[in-house]
């Protein structure tokens, strides 16, 4: 069922861009973000479960771990609220672009560390596809709103390849965690836009 809904949600990507009302893409992006939101904690739990103690210990949390290449989702409410649509969307766009690339990296890392864990690898792959889908949806919104779409960039750079296993585990943790945070934020972003551009 899930691949099917994903396909349905990805469908607007394929249709040629046309001057349409932003309400449609916003609604679709919102639905996708809501759907993603349901799976983020599962992804994080699955990921941690495969990394061994202390990652797999109940209640594990290391908020001090951050990745310089991945912008954190946390933002003060005041700043967030003051953002205009373009800025809001372009930040989310950038974040999900980075997340897509980082999820690919984490998937590669885990196929080395946990090659015999198809569940984890499948969940990471699915998360990456959904992030890509949301990116597409956001691009459609920006097109509809007449905003410039930021170019795709390499967010990872050269840094990550020599990382130790521990670093790879940590960055996987940060990526899966931030994926959840950014999804939460995207739901808020899109809810705001949805209210602003009703169908």
């Amino acid at each position, binding site marked *: 069922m899930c691949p099917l809904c994903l396909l349905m949600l990805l469908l607007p990507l394929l249709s040629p861009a046309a001057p349409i009302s932003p309400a449609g893409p916003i609604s679709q992006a919102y639905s996708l973000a809501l759907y993603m939101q349901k799976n983020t904690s599962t992804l994080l739990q699955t990921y941690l479960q495969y*990394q061994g103690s202390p*990652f797999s210990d109940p209640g594990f949390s290391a908020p001090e771990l951050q990745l310089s290449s991945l912008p954190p989702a946390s933002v003060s409410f005041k700043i967030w609220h003051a953002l205009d649509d373009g800025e809001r969307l372009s930040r989310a766009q950038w974040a999900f672009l980075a997340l897509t690339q980082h999820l690919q990296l984490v998937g590669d890392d885990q196929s*080395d560390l*946990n090659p015999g*864990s198809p569940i984890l690898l499948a969940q990471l792959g699915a998360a990456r596809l959904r992030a890509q889908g949301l990116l597409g949806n956001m691009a459609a919104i920006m097109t509809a709103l007449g905003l410039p779409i930021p170019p795709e960039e390499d967010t990872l750079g050269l840094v990550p390849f020599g990382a130790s296993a*521990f670093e790879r*585990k940590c960055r996987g943790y940060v990526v899966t965690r931030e994926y959840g945070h950014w999804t939460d934020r995207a739901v808020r972003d899109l809810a705001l836009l949805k209210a602003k551009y009703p169908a």
Partner: protein
Amino acid sequence: MDIYLRWKRPSRLVDNKRMRTTSDFQWLLSTFVLLYLMNHVTSQRKETPYDLKCTTNNLKMWDCSWKAPSGAGHGTLYEFCIDNRSHSCYQLARTNIEIPALSHGDHEITIRSLQDAGSSTSEFILNEKNISLIPDTPEILNLSADFSTSTLHVKWNDKGSVFPRHSNVIWEIKILRKKSMELVKLVTHNTSLSGKDAVHHWSWVSDLPLECAAHYVGMRCYVDSPLFSGHKEWSDWSPVKNISWTPDSQAKVFPQDKVVLVGSDITFCCVSQEKVLSAQIGRTYCPLIHLDGENVAIEVHDISVSDNSGTNVVFMIEDNVSGTVVFAGYPPDIPQNLNCETHDLKEIICSWNPGRPTGLVGPRNTSYTLFEGFSGKYIRFKRVEVSANGSYHQLLFQMVPNQEIYNFTLYARNPLGRSEATILVNITEKVYPHTPTSFKVKDINSTAVILSWHLPGSFAKINLLCQIEIKKINSVQELRNITIKGVENSSYRIAVGKLNPYTVYTFRIRCSAETFWKWSKWSNKKQHLTTEAIPSKGPDTWREWSSDGKNLIIYWKPLPINEANGKILSYNVSCSSDEETQSLSEIPDPQHKAEIQLDKNDYIISVVAKNSVGASPPSKIASMEIPNDDLKTEQAVGMGKGILLTWHQDPNMTCDYVIKWCNSSRSAPCLMDWRKVPSNSTEVLIESDQFRPGVRYNFFLYGCRNQGYQLLRSIIGYIEELAPIVAPNFTVEDTSADSILVKWEDIPVEELRGFLRGYLFYFEKGERDTSKIRGLESGRSDIKVKNITDISQKTLRIADLQGKTSYHLVLRAYTDGGMGPEKSMFVVTKENSVGLIIAILIPVAVAVIVGLVTSILCYRKREWIKETFYPDIPNPENCKALQFQKSVCEGSSALKTLEMNPCTPNSVEVLETRSTFPKIEDTEIISPVAECPEDSSGAEPENHVVVSYCPPIIEEEIPNPAGDEAGGTSQVIYIDVQSMYQPQVKPEEEHGKDPAGGAGYKPQMHLPINSTVEDIAAEDDLDKTAGYRPQANVNTWNLVSPDSPRSTDSNSEIVSFGSPCSINSRQFLIPPKDEDSPQSNGGGWSFTNFFQNKPND
């Protein structure tokens, strides 16, 4: 003193490791002490040079020095002379000199100081033994570190060129750690000098990662020259060199991503600028070992095997965390069960079991390389995380052309080690062919087919062994092995013979090489029907003459499938004699009988079966029956499913024996089946599914002689005998006062179900109802049994019976299968009439005489009686009325004058009810009379005529249910007294009164109807509710009653006389037509009915 000190120091530093040299030093000690004393003697005065000491660092030059004499100032000159063959002297202005090494032996040395004040001379004896060999301080050329492996590499030059001779050198290397220079390692390293300068390397692996602390290395050496007899000493320590790591700004933990053996000890350290709070491996916290700065380390002992993603080691730093992952696992196990085989002689498949899991995955997983020794080829095993073949791994190796012997070595390697397994195979002996495909079957003829199949593989050089499985329906499978020449990737064909025509076969095939290793898997199954052939035999034939003897009926059996060889379409029958031939052709298959009208000539009948291919050979049978005069019918009983017939061999019987049989109850011609047995056999077990137990069959044994059949034996038999299902029908032919003649009929054969072995006749005294209660087989002594084994006997006279007694007669037949059911009858014997008449006449006569005597007496004394009882003037004193109490019941009619109540002779005393049990006295039963309560309510007691009436109630054989018993209180039967007293109350009322205990009187014959079973519970109820219960058991009372029915039979037909109502059955025992006949109220029976006997049918 100085020398002593010099000796002493090295001995301490050598650290007692070189105990061998200690004895040398002791020897040297004594030598030097002696030398010292000599010097001391010669330079007692300090005015001369003294204290000459010589050392060497290369054995070529000696470096000698001495102490200047007192008073010697700057500018003093010395003359140093060596007194040897060439007396050489050296003028010098210092107190030391370097001289070439002197030869062995003592050398006299003269040192003369030339000073202003004059000269002084000292003489010394110099020997090589007095010389100390102190090598130059070594220098570490290079110290480098491999941080990834925590290895230190030390490089130095031994400066061997300065030593003229080959010598062994001992290097002592010390490793110091941390800024506080803690000694962590002191090792010795031996080399030898080659006469040239050589650079040496030495490596050391640190337990602590080198990143975490500075490491320092220093060294010194000791030259152990065997030819030098002098004193050898350690060189000075070289200056230390250090290795340190420049940390990043970020905290880092070392070693990173290390793979270690399970159970080993490992030290992790964290390089940090900030304070480290704690450290843990997995979930275990470890104590911190502080290093330089904020760096810390932890030691982990006996590490356990890691998860797939490794074991995490985490150091908690203030507001940060740092860590590393360690992978603890095992080196690869030796590959187990390495086996190489080929499916097609093109590719070799080597498979093995990796053995113990290493605990390492991903890039750390074991890599396998398969190497072939003769060809030098190798292939690598691609990593599979989840092996498709269970725990087995396998590799495909392309065969080398024209190579049959392969020497495979499988190398397994992972970061912790390597292992290998080898196998030498002749690959032609390890052929495990693929499953044969395209398996087909083609007909050759009715008994042979061609099988073809395809088998991929280059088998041109070997022979193949194939196994064909041939399976018939309902038959055991047959396996045939064949060897065929292998071919290159092609199809194979093979003929399979010895099959049966028109048979469904299932074929499948598998192959292996001729040098057997493994069978391939079975091919698909192919079902095949072989073609038809002519029937191999004629049908089994028999003939019977029809009942009128005009027609011959020919029977034959359908051919079994293995003889029919196809679908039988029709039969041809022909009868031929010398004169004529009759034939019936094309009788379609399902018909297996033909009738031909023939005269009584001898015919030969032949029957031919035909299928689509052709006709069977004819089966012939003669029509003639040879008569047999001495033919007796025998009996036989089967065993189990069949019946065994035996006979004596008759040499006249030339062809065969035929046993035919039929159900004896069927009409002629009698034929169920027949069976032919060869002429040499003397017994046959006839079995048939049609046989049923308890059914009589006729068996006829025919012998075949001169083309004619003779009936030899006729046997009736049962497969299994059963008990008869009916009882013999029997009647009473005649009855007298002391005997009964019984006659019975035969039981039909169908109902007999076995050979009749006899009859059992039981008789006993008894009436119908009572006898039924008890079983016949209870072995009671009063039952008489007669076993009639003469089955032709059809009558039986039972003698010595009592007259006028009811007898219960039972007859049953029996076979070996058991007893049949019983048939019973009740017969009452006739009375002995003479005795009866006498018995009646005597009391009548006595009564008449008594009456006459009384009348005469009364007549003669009439005056006295009148005076006494009826005086004209009554005398009050004679009045007996005042004595009423005494004589009230004396039956005198004189009491009438007192107008007393008439006194009834049956002194029934009516009492007031004081208790639930009314007092009853002296009740005399004279005649039981059935009284129907419905009728009695309105009747007057005085004019009541004893007419027993009962509604016609159908007799019930079964015991009355309990519900009837309760109602039984309404059917009170009470016994008349003289006055034919009847109860004045309705039974219902009486029933109602009973529990209250209000009834002053109860008839004694207050009996429940239920007579078959004594219901104790009901009796108890009666005890409680009514104050009275019957004194006599109804059964016994009934038995002794003279009013009981004379004869009844089991069908409950009533043979009766008199008019009493049966107490138990509530029914007149006389037929309704007799209802109007006069009834006797005295004895309950009458002469008119006395001899009535209604024989039952």
